[in-house]
């Protein structure tokens, strides 16, 4: 019986520690998950609208490696969205790449200037060759002023 109790204790500790999913909130601490949408749903909406207020759930592809002040999230089919944070008031952990995030803000199709593209490459520790190769503004999806982010 003693052995069974020891086994039960070990199972109990392991299963509990594996089961806890940490959810971190950045920016607006009152952010809720109500009404969250997938990347596909967002793309469908933006096919007929210029912009839309969303709570987008997507995987984080990359993050600013200087201070966590922007991130690219995956919209599927090699499409990405650039996310920046309202008024520089909050950033995200630099080691959160590949995690799932929910981002609240106004999503739209944006034009990213050459200066901004170079700045993002510098922040991502890209090579000088890559930075110098940028010469044209880029049209891309963005949330330029996210008000809150949840990272799962």
């Amino acid at each position, binding site marked *: *019986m*003693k052995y*069974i*109790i020891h086994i*039960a*204790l070990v*199972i*109990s500790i392991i*299963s*509990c520690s594996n*089961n*806890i*999913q*940490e*959810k*971190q*909130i*950045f920016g607006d*601490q009152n952010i809720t998950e109500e009404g969250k949408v997938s990347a596909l749903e967002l793309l469908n909406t933006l096919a007929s609208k210029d912009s839309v207020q969303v709570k987008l759930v997507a995987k984080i592809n990359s993050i600013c490696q*200087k*201070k*966590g*002040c*922007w991130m690219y999230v995956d919209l599927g089919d090699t499409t990405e969205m650039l996310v*920046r944070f309202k*008024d*520089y*008031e*909050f*950033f*995200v*952990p*630099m080691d959160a790449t590949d995690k799932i995030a929910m981002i609240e803000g106004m999503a739209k199709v944006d034009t990213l200037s050459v*200066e*901004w593209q170079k*700045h993002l490459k510098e922040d991502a520790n890209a090579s000088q060759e890559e930075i110098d190769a940028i010469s044209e503004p880029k049209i891309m999806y963005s949330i330029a*002023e996210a008000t809150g982010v949840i990272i799962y």
Partner: protein
Amino acid sequence: MLKKIFFLIIIITIFGCSSTTKECENIQINPNGESELALVMRALYTNTLDIKKELFTNTDTTITNLNSINLEEFKINYNALHTSKPTDLNLRIDGKYEKFADTYINSSKNFINNSSKENYNSMVNNCIQCHEQFCLGAIKKIQKLYTK
């Protein structure tokens, strides 16, 4: 007795694990840690916003009798632009940043000597010009400091 302990463990396991999501609030601005220079710049932003709110909304207020800010604190903060440790340790290597910092500090001194709207906006403008070279992300926020 042992049976009771066994069942107790089972019950604790079931109820203890039923709550699977742990929420963590991150009140701090940067979970990666802010550099000294970033903190100085945030302090300068707050100083400048306080000056703007008080100086340009109350006609009785002058730069020397502000209630919301101690001018000495503002001076210490702008002088710290030359000494604080930056996020990017390569920032000071070529001397370019120091020149922009000097231009901004001189315009701040100029504003303290003559607190006109023109000199105030020139100080904000010099802050933005430096950010255009080194850190684009904060520009939208700094633009809110301009006064009409």
